[in-house]
């Protein structure tokens, strides 16, 4: 008998942690890609402006990434504690894709730390190479992790056997990256987050330009926003059509709640805003609205596509395996643990935001205080 509190708190903890994680990590992914583009442009053009923008953005990235990374650890432990059999199945079937994501995390964090700490302390070309490792690592993470979501939407590569009166779910040896749902989901995650970050960077560059240099050199985030928003629209369409074909329960849940239409409308709006951003004066407004709408698009897709599986944890066509089946039945995990967790996450989020405020508005980072030690 599964303790009902484990089902409730298992869903709550994973939902809250997942929300916090993707809310922060989406910007981390986008910045990891855009920052090296800025540095390369600065290097090729011999223009310090682009390099200084890259440096400012990195100081933000480095702070947000650690907080976002902690949330990933929270997610993993909560999943293991509340949904052990689901995690076992995922790690068994998705051993290599998940390992790829783990490798991506390692490459991204280490190269990010090096990228920050070695600024102006090493040759520009070598520094750019570190930045490219950072971008590659960051892209590997959602690529590998999307295989888990794909597995829950359409359990490709799973072998179901019955023995000793028990049902086992193990790998059937097929490559899980060939799951038809996987690639559109992974690529949508990439381009939606890059589009979102492009708008944020565009807004930042514009506001800085007004203060300092007049009309902005803002073509990098504009081009990036246009390309990535068009591609995210394309892969959203592909992802939804694959869900319609392979995960009909999920599809009908999305369709019946009208979320589907909101998602498509938002995608089109984001594309439109990115095109309007070509005009500098309009981009001052379109960048902010574009950032808000693309954030909304990304979060809405992630939340709705996960919530729509309920009451199932894994969807199999028009039905599925319920969340209760996978919940930890060993004992009732004390309710005080998740409640204390929520209190701490609230307190630490406030502290974190206050630190960010201090770092960027009260004592802005202009370099100098992070380099070599004084001797």
């Amino acid at each position, binding site marked *: 008998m599964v303790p009902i509190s484990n089902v409730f708190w298992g869903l709550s903890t994973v939902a809250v942690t997942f929300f916090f994680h993707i809310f922060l990590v989406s910007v981390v992914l986008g910045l990891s890609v855009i920052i090296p583009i800025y540095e390369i442009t600065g290097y090729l053009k011999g223009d310090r402006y682009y390099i200084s923008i890259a440096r400012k953005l990195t100081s933000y990235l480095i702070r947000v990434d650690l907080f976002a990374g902690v949330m990933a650890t929270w997610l993993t432990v909560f999943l293991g504690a509340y949904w052990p059999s689901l995690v076992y199945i995922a790690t068994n079937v998705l051993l290599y894709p998940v390992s790829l994501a783990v490798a991506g995390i*390692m490459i991204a964090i280490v190269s990010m730390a090096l990228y920050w700490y070695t600024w102006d302390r090493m040759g520009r070309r070598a520094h750019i190479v570190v930045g490219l490792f950072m971008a590659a690592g960051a892209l590997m993470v959602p690529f590998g992790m999307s295989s888990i979501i794909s597995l829950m939407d359409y359990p490709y590569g799973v072998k179901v056997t019955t023995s000793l009166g028990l049902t086992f779910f193990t790998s059937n040896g097929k490559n899980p990256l060939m799951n038809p749902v996987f690639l559109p989901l992974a690529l949508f995650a990439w381009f939606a987050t890059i589009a979102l970050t492009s708008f944020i960077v565009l807004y930042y560059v514009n506001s800085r330009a007004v203060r300092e240099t007049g009309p902005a050199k803002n073509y990098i985030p504009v081009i990036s926003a246009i390309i990535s928003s068009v591609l995210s629209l394309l892969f959203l369409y592909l992802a939804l059509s694959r869900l319609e074909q392979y995960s009909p329960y999920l599809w009908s849940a999305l369709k019946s709640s009208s979320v589907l239409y909101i998602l498509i409308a938002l995608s089109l709006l984001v594309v439109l805003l990115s095109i309007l951003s070509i005009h500098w004066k309009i981009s001052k407004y379109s960048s902010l609205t574009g950032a808000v709408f693309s954030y909304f698009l990304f979060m809405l897709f992630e939340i709705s596509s996960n919530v729509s599986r309920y009451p199932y944890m894994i969807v199999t066509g028009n039905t599925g395996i319920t969340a209760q089946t996978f919940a930890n039945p*060993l004992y009732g995990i004390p309710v005080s643990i998740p409640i204390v967790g929520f209190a701490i996450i609230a307190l630490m989020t406030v502290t974190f935001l206050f630190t960010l405020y201090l770092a960027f508005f009260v004592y802005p980072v202009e370099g100098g205080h992070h380099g070599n030690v004084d001797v």
Partner: protein
Amino acid sequence: MLQRLTIQAFQLIYLAVSGSWSSANTAELMTIVGIYVHAFFLIFAFAFPIVVLTLEAIGIRRGDEDYIRMAWNGSKLWGITFAAGAVTGTLVEFGLIVVWSGSLALIASMAAAPLMLELYAFIIEIVLIGTYLTTFWRFKRRKWGHLLIGLGVLFGSNLSAYMILAVNAWMQVPWGTGNTVSHLFLPWVPSLGPLVVNPVKLKLLATTLPIVGSSLLSSPGAFQLLSNFTTDPWIAIFNPEVYATYLHNLFAALIITSFLASSYFSYKIIKRVGDERYSWKGLRVTFLVATVASFLQAFAGDFQGRELYLYQRNIFDATEGIPAKGGYDPIMSILLYGNLNHFFPGTNYLSSLLPQGDVLGQLTIASTNTYAPVLHLLYYTMVISGAILIILGIGYFGLYSTTIRKIVQSLLRIREETFVLYGSFAGAFLSILAGITGWATRELGRHPWTVYGVVTYNDVVNSRIITPLFTGAIILLEIGIFLAGLWGIYMIFFKNLKRGGGSH
């Protein structure tokens, strides 16, 4: 003994080359590298705050900005080591779940509470590190307030370490299982605390996993057979083994990091980089911290050793080099029994306790006998290194005591200051050596068990084949992260020195 070690080394190479290694063997290799790389970075988060906060507190108390600057420079190390520590921690955590996926039974049961509390400690630590670094030099009037943030970092990192070590300690001594372990496989194990783990369910898990393997856990129904597993999910946190392990690891990490810091100051003095007076100030404080921790470590080590003797007698025999047929060990005898003549029965006696058909019990004794020479060597490398560290610590007081200064000078024919300068390098080397060999003794000694007396390595490894190629790729990545972390430390702390340095 050297001959036996050589033969064992060749046996391991033969097994690897001939492809006879199981998934568990291959997976273990990557886990060993991963744990050590992680440990190197995490000790800076675990114990180095004590060094940094000591420097800052002295600076505030004396109104001496030199010490505060040292604390600032030291805290910069947190950035790079925390990033590398977090990333390798993620690797170890994923390794636990992805490669040793049978451990999910542990995570979902006895380790759930400590691991979730560790999450909370982790976020406190990471957020407060950011606040500490961002607000450094900003507290003009309330400098103690800044120190308070640093204490928050120390609290977070130590709570985190305690909870992780609680899980590891439960794998060594599964507290709360009463007499179940002795009834299952290992009859020499005493009662392990109050019986709060359902013995029927524990027995079901322990006897089914070796037959089905970790893929048992791919069945949600199998988990449901284990319902009502425990009545006390907090028991792992109150395991007496974790008290000893936590103290022992804390002092080990403090000795290593403070000796590394004192080596840095010594290096600058020897190379004549920067202000020598400034470096001596730092050297005196960091060496003193290392010395105090080395003295305390002797008591923590004794505490840990007593736990080993009490709960893991076969490993105790191996580490102390007690022959299989039994023998005398005067030092242990006097420490444990207050006389020199206690006879320690060896593994032959333990083997005689095993009931007929206890395959895992026999495997345990065989494993202990196989690894005994290696364990004995590793253990005594740690003990002797620790003893030399204490001698170094006594020698340090020659800076303040004329008598000790004279003894050092007459024995070593060098000036006291030279002894302290070069002693810090010796201290760093020996403390790292002691740390590596000590942890190896703990983990190697537990073979073949993941949870001592309950679940073996082979039971928890992922049922997918862990190939040598996969293992090789992960190990390369682990080594790459280690080198990248070292490179980052070099760029921050040493590159400027080579350039000729500046002044503070």
